[in-house]
């Protein structure tokens, strides 16, 4: 197997329970999801040679249900940006059936559009993040890229659910999600956001309108909704995300793991020098933005947190009128794989940020928003905890794909 695509290949992927519901399913993982004894370095020298001492909760569940864990993909440093990512290639080259990736600003949805495959980011707080080496605790979700919608639903039914080791999870009222259902017609009314449409260029708009036409044929009504606060999503995500990252990255101190700078005079020097060496320039820029909010302008962080409340509330109001909100998953001209600066990264993910900020679930469907040969992905976002409806809808739509 081409190890340019893998940062680590598991020589013996067959798990003990080879008769489980996920038997024979080949799954690769972002190297920031802990697997005991695997080199899970999250693409960063901050975790150089780091080998977790126990499995992430989702990994335990996958193993228990017979999935074959192939190994670790490559990824952008600490999950910020997708510049070095290989998860989508493993799917498009049919080397893996599914890849578990971490979605903080839309990575799973973006990469699945690139792969021409299915992508799914669940509601925040229903899938354990225990064992995830994260960067933005309040937004990141363990998500997936998958060759088939049904397998995506099967995997999710295994990995979701309460975990006493994750204190950030929903504790009461966690929805049941056992198995996908053959239930059609749950989605009747779809919304599109005027302010989002206004940002698209003519080719993107045309591709998106074609996709909408396909849905209309299926009897789904499309409603254009105004969302005047929509432009705030980016600011709120960036201020909250960078601040949380700056705070979360405090753990990379070169003491318990990670690269240690040589010959430092004292404790402060050890931190300064080790952390100078261990972070790449992109992630470091993001951490400095966060440090600015954390230490110099906490008011801005708090204000962003207030605006997040506002955005969540307004989004909820839109979902009173519609079952889902549709948009393309990625822009045509902003290439996340080539992003160098923090701005480049955010430019590439503008369309996926709302679901991350509001903790909403979102599916990305392949083959529907086509700008020429380029699959922009159809992003279907549902209200918080509507994961079951979204996955059923994905299966329904995938069956139509095969019929066509």
């Amino acid at each position, binding site marked *: 197997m081409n190890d340019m695509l893998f940062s680590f290949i598991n020589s013996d992927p067959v798990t003990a329970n080879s008769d489980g519901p996920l038997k024979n399913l080949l799954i690769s993982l972002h190297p920031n999801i802990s697997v005991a004894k695997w080199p899970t370095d999250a693409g960063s020298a901050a975790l150089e040679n780091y080998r977790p001492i126990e499995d992430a909760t989702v990994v335990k569940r996958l193993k228990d249900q017979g999935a074959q864990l192939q190994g670790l993909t490559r990824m952008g440093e600490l999950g910020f940006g997708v510049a070095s990512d290989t998860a989508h290639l493993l799917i498009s080259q049919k080397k893996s059936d599914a890849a578990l990736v971490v979605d903080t600003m839309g990575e799973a949805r973006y990469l699945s559009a690139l792969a021409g495959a299915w992508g799914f980011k669940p509601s925040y707080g229903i899938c354990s993040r225990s064992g995830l080496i994260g960067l933005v605790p309040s937004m990141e979700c363990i998500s997936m890229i998958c060759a088939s919608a049904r397998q995506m639903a099967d995997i999710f039914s295994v990995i979701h659910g309460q975990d006493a080791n994750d204190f950030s999870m929903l504790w009461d009222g966690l929805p049941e999600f056992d198995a996908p259902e053959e239930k059609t017609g749950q989605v009747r009314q779809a919304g599109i956001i005027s302010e989002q449409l206004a940002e698209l260029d003519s080719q993107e708009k045309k591709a998106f309108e074609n996709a909408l036409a396909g849905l209309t044929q299926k009897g789904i009504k499309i409603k254009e909704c105004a969302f005047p606060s929509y432009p705030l999503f980016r*600011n709120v995500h960036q201020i909250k995300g960078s601040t949380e990252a700056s705070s979360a990255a405090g753990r990379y101190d070169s003491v318990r793991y990670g690269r240690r700078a040589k010959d430092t005079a004292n404790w402060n020097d050890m931190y300064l020098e080790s952390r100078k060496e261990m972070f790449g320039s992109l992630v470091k820029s993001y951490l400095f933005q966060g440090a600015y909010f954390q230490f110099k302008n906490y008011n801005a962080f708090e204000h962003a947190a207030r605006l997040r409340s506002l955005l969540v509330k307004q989004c909820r109001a839109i979902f009173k009128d519609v079952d889902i909100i549709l948009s393309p998953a990625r822009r045509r001209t902003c290439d996340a794989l080539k992003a160098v600066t923090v701005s480049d990264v955010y430019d590439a993910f503008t369309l996926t940020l709302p679901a991350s900020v509001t903790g909403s679930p979102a599916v990305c469907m392949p083959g529907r928003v086509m700008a020429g040969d380029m699959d922009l992905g159809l992003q279907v976002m549902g209200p918080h905890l509507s994961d079951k409806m979204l996955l059923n809808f994905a299966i329904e739509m995938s069956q139509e794909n095969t019929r066509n």
Partner: protein
Amino acid sequence: MNWQERTGCGNVGKDDVGREIQLQGWVDARRDHGEVLFIHLRDWTGIVQVVFQETESKDMLETAQNLREEYCIEITGRVVARAPGTENSSITTGTIEVTASALSVLNASVGLPFHISEKAMVAGAVVGTPANVAEDLRLQYRYLDLRRPSMQDNLIKRHQIIKSARKILEDRGFIEVETPCLTKSTPEGARDYIVPSRVHPGEFYALPQSPQLFKQLLMVSGLERYYQVARCFRDEDLRPNRQPEFTQLDIEASFIDESFLFELIEEIVSQMFAVGGIDLLRPFPKMCYQEAIATTGSDRPDLRFGLRFVAATDLFTNTSYAIFKQILKRNGCIIGINVKGQSEALSKNVLQNEYAKQIVPGFGGKGMTWMRMVDGKLDSNIVQFFSPAEQQDIIERFECEDGDVLMIIADPSYALATKVLGQLRLHVADRLGLIPKNTWSPVWVTDFPLFDPTETGGVTSTHHPFTAPDRTDFDPQNVSDLLSLKSRAYDIVLNGEELGGGSIRIDNREVQQKIFTALGLTPEEAAQKFGFFLQAFEFGPPPHGGLALGIDRIAAMVLSTRSIRDVIAFPKNRSAFCPLTHAPSLVSHEQLAELELLNLGGGEAMPGKAEKNLLETLSWVSRIGIREEEALMIKTAVEQAEKLATQIQARATDEEPMFSVIPLQNRTRPGREAVAHFGVENGDLLTNAAEVKGDFFKVANIIE
């Protein structure tokens, strides 16, 4: 509130069996058996078991079933003897229990950040201790931490320690006088905490580092015997066991000499330690400074064990061993210790690779010579360089027997050699377990040098410039004469820790002026610094002297706590920060403006706070260094962050801040107990570390 009828939980005993009593307190722990429910009820007198039974009242049992840890409740009930076999020896009331007939919840408690209960409900069960909880979390919820019986006991004992001292002082006619906290900088040598004055814009008070000047002024006033439990403040660098503010028992008396104070302080210290059941043997021995340095390398000698220094310089006058020869040529000294019978624990490898190569250089020494006594002969990597006569001299001088290990330090500087060997002495004693437990060795250290030499060839006060010298006929211009002066200062040391110190003060204006001259202060400079103080000494001051004892450290020693923070109700953490109140904190622009602190120095940047580049500040506070080639990129990113902040400020909202889309949940989940991670138990947690030493992560020096 029916407080007259209340019984203390810890005061209920066998004699009360059959009595109806009323208890108030907190639910320490509970065991629910369905038809019967047990709780431990705790107040500050102790813990008693209360039983709620369906047979008494179904409603009451239902209410009891909703009780959770730390609910504040009131019960009425009857004391009954426990059935044989159900006694609980872990609480003092374990032979009885109280059958509740009425229960009322005074106030409920939300879920706890950590468990408070320290007493098992059934014999042999494991309970949490403060050591298992992160200290900053304890400090953040200090009011809960102080509900622990062990912490309450610490504060109660601290109170008794101070009370015992007050009693002795009052019996002897001392009076307590309060001195100001807002004062002027005093000459203690550490940095002051300063307090801006609003009515005198741009001017500052200083918080006292000690009441030194005021207590001496009280002596001038004729208040002959003074004491105070005084709060003192020092803005010093961080140390694990140092607090920015601390409490000292400050004492001063007139018309007395050292013998008065020694007797008084020994009585006070003995009574303080008696609170912890510790008996100190009196009178405390005295040791002069020179002897302390020559035999232990420290002016805080730990006399609980031997390992006294042996001077050996004279044995090597004619040696051919090059290293010693060179050191002696530079007027150096050679001193050592004989670690009796430890050649098995101190192998060649340990001596050479750990002590000589790592530990001694870590103390600032250039090297260490070691020898082991084997079969009546010295054995070492360098023993061949010594003549048979020298070897014999060494054996005799150090009184060597088989199994002994000699550790020898040679250095051109006597001060350095003694300091290094002193630290080595403590290290070896600790490592080999040579320090006996429950042994208390107090000692007075006396005859300190009055001055220390400075690097520029002058002198500086060893204590403070008001300490009396042992003679007054010195020449203030003659440095070697000054360095030969001894002071009338004394420190009280216990087990190598300084409990306090003091001195007989200068009461003569001319002598004081000579001291200032020796320190290089002109009369004008002295007047500017201490004018008010010196002027007072023009008016017939009495001879006087005094001492101060460090209460926090004494309480920590008496109670054998791991940290002095355990004997202080609301301490700062190791970083001089208070996790409870979040002090120190920023203050508003308006507050600074009112104090006229914003435009100190006119249009210039504030004095002492040169406007630091934002990038440098962020790099420092987040401890991330910047590579040269990425500086521009990071600068651009931070500018963008500033822009983002400006953009969102324009969008007003009064929504509550949302930190997560999932409402925050209680940290302590039902049915979950704090357990040590298996990685801690089997050492796996250490496997990813860059550097490890034993069971610890190894890091760079915390203090240079």
